[in-house]
């Protein structure tokens, strides 16, 4: 299949199941890019995620970067539009209805049922990136330290990312 059509189709589908945001579909992007399509290896995927975290903007731009890596400008455009388009259309039409079912049992049940899945997927993303970074015990320690600092302070993540780059250069991670 044409690679652009493939990107549009796959990312478009992800858009509609991205409960919990772009972080929640990272595992599926990984499966797609590394395991089924062989667009890149595990380490490259982890690098692209690292770059996307170090770039200001919505997490969704990881799709832009994957698209760019696979097929240049047209790939970047296709992946971004496909990841953001379908969900944007959906919420555009759903906004009014959501207000209407405010406070109903239905809304509570849907929310309570989807939330744990979204959380599991975000945690899965973290595990997959940890595995992809694959730098041994130093890297695991750095990941664990980041979790502790991020949970216990309101430090701008940029400082942590900078520290990660320096520690990486120093050969610790």
């Amino acid at each position, binding site marked *: 299949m044409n690679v652009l059509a493939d990107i549009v189709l796959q990312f478009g589908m*992800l*858009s509609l*199941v*991205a*409960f919990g*945001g*772009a972080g929640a579909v990272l*595992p599926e992007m990984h499966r797609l890019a590394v395991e089924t399509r062989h667009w890149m290896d595990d380490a490259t995927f*982890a*690098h*692209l995620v*690292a*770059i*996307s*975290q170090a*770039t*200001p*903007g*919505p*997490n969704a*731009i990881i799709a*832009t*970067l994957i698209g*760019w*890596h696979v097929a240049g*400008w047209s790939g*970047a455009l296709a992946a*971004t539009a496909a990841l*953001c388009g379908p*969900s*944007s259309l959906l*919420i*555009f039409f759903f906004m009014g209805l*959501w207000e209407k079912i405010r406070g109903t*049992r239905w809304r509570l*049940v*849907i929310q309570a*049922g*989807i939330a*744990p*899945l979204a959380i*599991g*997927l*975000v*945690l899965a*993303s973290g595990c997959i990136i940890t*595995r992809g*970074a694959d*730098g041994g015990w130093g*890297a695991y320690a750095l*990941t*664990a330290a980041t*979790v502790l600092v*991020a949970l216990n302070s309101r430090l*701008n*993540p940029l400082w942590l*990312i900078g520290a990660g780059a320096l520690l*990486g*250069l120093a050969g610790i*991670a």
Partner: protein
Amino acid sequence: MEQRHEVSHSELFWGFCRIALSGFGGVMSWARRAMVEERGWLSSEEFTSLFGLCQFMPGPNIVNMSVCVGSRFQGASGAVVSLLGLLSAPCLLIIALGALYGRFGALPAVQAMLRGVASVAAGLILAMGLRMAADLFKRPLMLIFSAAILGEVVFLHWPLLAVMFGLAPVSMWVAARRYCKAP
């Protein structure tokens, strides 16, 4: 009746542009500050309600937010303008970085640096997941579903669509039986 001031197309575009460029690793907390505290586009309650919707609906949360806020002030064209404002600058930036990576990514120093950044990125994502999970402790049984989807995705490598459509009905059924009793 509440007086709602007008927010123009160009204000929406540049507003979301600023929001996008001011945050790293997700920008929702910046969005709140900019829209509620600095610009007064939304009241705090309006923000919280919209945020709930944007979190619940599929798609990147802040992207959803830009669509909601844009369409609220200027209809469909406002939604498009806000979305473009949010995405254009970060997309160009990340393509520039992607091009640099393509050029220099193989250098050992760059590889080492990115390994460090990737470890931190993983930590930031895990921390976000844990913070989200804290809300779940009032419904501890539901944590089983978090664990199940994590295992299926990370260790069994099952496709997300199958996993999602397999687990969501069960998860909603349990939520309905255990935690959202019919009145």
